[in-house]
């Protein structure tokens, strides 16, 4: 049925879209990189015309460094940095940063704690000074620990009722068994057991110049900010050096199900080990993944969403850490089509392995990925993210400048090779969270 079709046009040839013009060259912004005498690295990137500047201090201390029985103490330490310094209360910190047009955000992951904020340009040096104070002079108080503890317990309770969290937590336990990456969340008992000494000890052991890299991106007075950084961070102790802890991935075929009675959907996580960011296969794998699963127009999305309507939210990602990679496809699907969804996902994976992709599809995806790269690098935080990945993974400066070329060079044979090499069913892990009574039979064929 065609609304508002013009009479006589129904049998006309379809118009092809106008091709557009020639692309402008994209150049990654210039960086000034230097190291303070205490080992702290600094990367400055004057960028953009908007009068704002983004700071991100990456301290290489995260949940992988938590002592046994103290999971996520690192996150609590990060949270407590905001609660006051020797000369500023939490309220004063919040107010001061608000007056600069920004806020302070602290988040802790497996390998690092990020302390970041974006302020108006004219306050760049002032924010650098405040950041230095927050990082170096925390005032750890028992009352603050109690509030943070209560907040964490509440957040853990809420997470336990979310299907996505249930599925991903289980998935991590399976694929990283025996390694700190396996446990995303602390238990309630672990959180209840945190002491102020735990906080102080973690801070003393893990915070210092040698573990820290400060990024500054945007519009800022370079001299004033550099001086503020030297003045603020120059006297910080060197501290301990960051360590690596590369997991041995559990690459055995596995299946796990978590019962979520009466759930209208099943939450599926399915995947296999993939290449690390620093692996020569990385760009080729990214192209393959985008065709298969990682774009709106991808094969899995076209199949289970746009053809069959089984799901709204299919997607994939390559989970990367240092020398580590794991590819994951996930989708929340209608309960009665759980088995059918897994079947279609595996069908598309096998199609990628067995048939080379066509040139049009391949060129389209490469164009998409290059466009995405430009878009991500048009934002201050996107630029920081790229630089941080480059540094964390030790890939060298030319990685960013050559990424577009690497993408462009990928061939149909490369794509098929990536699927054959990595998307191996014998190494596949599957986790399903759903109504066991309704889906147990549906998923039986996929349990082994």
């Amino acid at each position: 049925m065609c609304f508002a079709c013009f009479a006589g046009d129904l049998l006309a040839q379809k118009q092809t879209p106008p091709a557009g013009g020639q692309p402008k060259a994209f150049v990654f912004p210039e960086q000034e990189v230097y190291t303070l005498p205490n080992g702290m690295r600094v990367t400055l990137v004057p960028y953009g015309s908007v009068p704002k500047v983004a700071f991100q201090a990456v301290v290489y201390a995260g949940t992988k460094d938590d002592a046994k029985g103290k999971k996520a103490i690192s996150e609590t330490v990060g949270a407590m940095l905001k609660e006051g310094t020797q000369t500023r209360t939490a309220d004063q910190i919040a107010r001061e940063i608000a007056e600069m047009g920004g806020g302070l955000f602290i988040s802790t992951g497996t390998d690092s704690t990020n302390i970041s904020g974006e302020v108006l340009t004219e306050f760049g040096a002032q924010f650098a000074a405040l950041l230095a104070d927050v990082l170096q002079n925390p005032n750890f108080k028992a009352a603050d620990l109690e509030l943070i503890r209560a907040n964490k317990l509440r957040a853990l309770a809420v997470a336990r009722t979310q299907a996505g969290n249930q599925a991903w937590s289980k998935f991590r336990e399976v694929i990283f068994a025996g390694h700190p990456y396996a446990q995303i969340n602390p238990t309630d008992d672990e959180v209840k057991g945190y002491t102020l000494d735990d906080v102080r000890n973690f801070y003393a052991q893990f915070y210092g110049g040698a573990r820290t890299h400060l990024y500054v991106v945007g519009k800022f007075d370079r001299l004033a900010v550099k001086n503020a950084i030297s003045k603020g961070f120059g006297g910080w102790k060197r501290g301990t050096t960051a360590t690596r802890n590369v997991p041995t991935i559990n690459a055995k075929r596995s299946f796990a199900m978590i019962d979520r009675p009466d759930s209208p959907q099943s939450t599926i996580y399915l995947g296999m080990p993939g290449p690390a960011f620093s692996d020569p296969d990385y760009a080729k794998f990214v192209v393959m993944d985008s065709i298969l699963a990682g774009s709106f127009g991808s094969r899995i999305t076209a199949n289970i969403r746009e053809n069959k309507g089984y799901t709204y939210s299919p997607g994939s990602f390559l989970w990367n850490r240092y020398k580590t990679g794991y590819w994951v496809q996930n989708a929340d699907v209608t309960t009665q089509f759980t088995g059918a969804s897994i079947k279609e996902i595996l069908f598309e994976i096998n199609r990628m392995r067995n048939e080379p992709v066509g040139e049009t599809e391949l060129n389209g995806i490469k164009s998409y990925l290059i466009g995405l790269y430009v878009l991500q690098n048009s934002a201050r935080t996107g630029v920081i993210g790229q630089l941080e990945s480059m540094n964390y993974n030790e890939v060298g400066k030319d990685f960013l400048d050559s990424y577009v070329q690497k993408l462009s060079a990928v061939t149909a044979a490369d794509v098929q090779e990536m699927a054959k090499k990595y998307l191996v069913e014998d190494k596949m892990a599957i986790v399903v969270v759903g109504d066991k009574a309704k889906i147990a039979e549906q998923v039986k064929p996929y349990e082994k």
Partner: protein
Amino acid sequence: MRTLIKRSAASLFVMSMMLSLGVTTQAQKAKPQAGISVPVTYYKLGNGLKVVLSPERSAPLATIAVYYNIGFRIEPRDRTGFAHLFEHLMFQGSKNLGKMEYIRLVESNGGVLNGSTRFDFTNYFAVVPSHKVETLLWAEADRMRGLDITDDNLKNQQGVVGNEVKVNVLNQPYGGFPWIDLPMAAFTNWYNSHNFYGELEDIEAATMADAKTFFDKYYSPKNAVLVVTGDFNERDARTWIQKYFADIPAQTPDKIPDISEPRQTKEKTVTKSDKLANKPGVAFGYKMPERGTPEYYAMGLIDQIMLQGEDSLLYKEFVKDRGFAGGVGGGINSGLGNMFNYNGPMLFDISLIHDDKFSAADITRSLDSVVANLQEKEVSQKDINRAIVKLRSGLYDTMTQFGGFGRADLLACFAIFDDNPQKINQIEANFRRVTPALIKKTAKEYLRSTNRTTVILKAEGK
């Protein structure tokens, strides 16, 4: 859905071109003003399509956005969720772009795309490399001209939308809390108080005939604005817009029904049970003053002072001093946009998830003490200045983030709601006019408890 922000140089040559191509309105040239300012060129095609052009050359990207002046507020009564379902249908095929072809066209040209349905508009946009603007204009015109979809497409998207409602609401603790629950409780006019995400039965009941009627009523150039912003050549854009959009037939859109709300005279409280949640929650909604009035701008500052950021009064009261919660959320149109991109009755809302040991009454008493302060004492100019700094910083982000989409959003809304996209350059000045006395007066009227609706979320999960 639910993705639920230099000077224009219109030369003599361009002006004469416009007259010969049948454009009815003269382009309005932007004058630079103090504060945040972007160039704005505004004109209308013969068929009524509003066009806004706003160059910005910091990155080789452009945003092409079409906003239709129809959201879920006034969707048909027996078809809750229909406006949103229809948004999905707009991606299913038009005369020259079959199923999935629009999506692949954008992505294979190095762009990203999306659409969303809100209270008062439905938008379709793409952010593309700057040399692909013509391609996108052609594609948006193709689907504005008409859809070409089948029963299977409809069935398919009913499945997709049903799953969207499940993954975001039905299978989530706090699924519709408070962004659906609060307006449903607070408003009395059905248009403002129905379940706009859609009851599953209503989504399932939709027909192709419904879709055709909806398209004819609302998806006309006369009911839309086209925005192009970013790195593009204005003269080329005008040529392409004329070429692809000018001959789309105009249809007069349906009149907007009465969406007004009576003045609230009694405090309302509603309790909602959540079988998946295991911690209680509470949400408060205050009815906003009319958009664009001095009181409306005062509420924008009250939102910053009271609720936004860790320097806010409620963060201090609820999180730091009383320990009710780890954070407090809300704002104006907080669930579905910002204070600029709606056009009808709206709430200023505050919500939190808390521990069992605190009751909604405890939290309400605490809220009352903060509100009383604003009603009885004038805030200082310093407080106002800090609120404006926060707003200004946020506006910079809105105007520049995501390849210019935030800027396109503001331009589009000021065009379709106010016929004046230049208002984007007056935002800061309007906030600067707000005095401590006006904030006090506004707090007295709009933060009175008889203007408040409370939704208490009872956690029944494990």
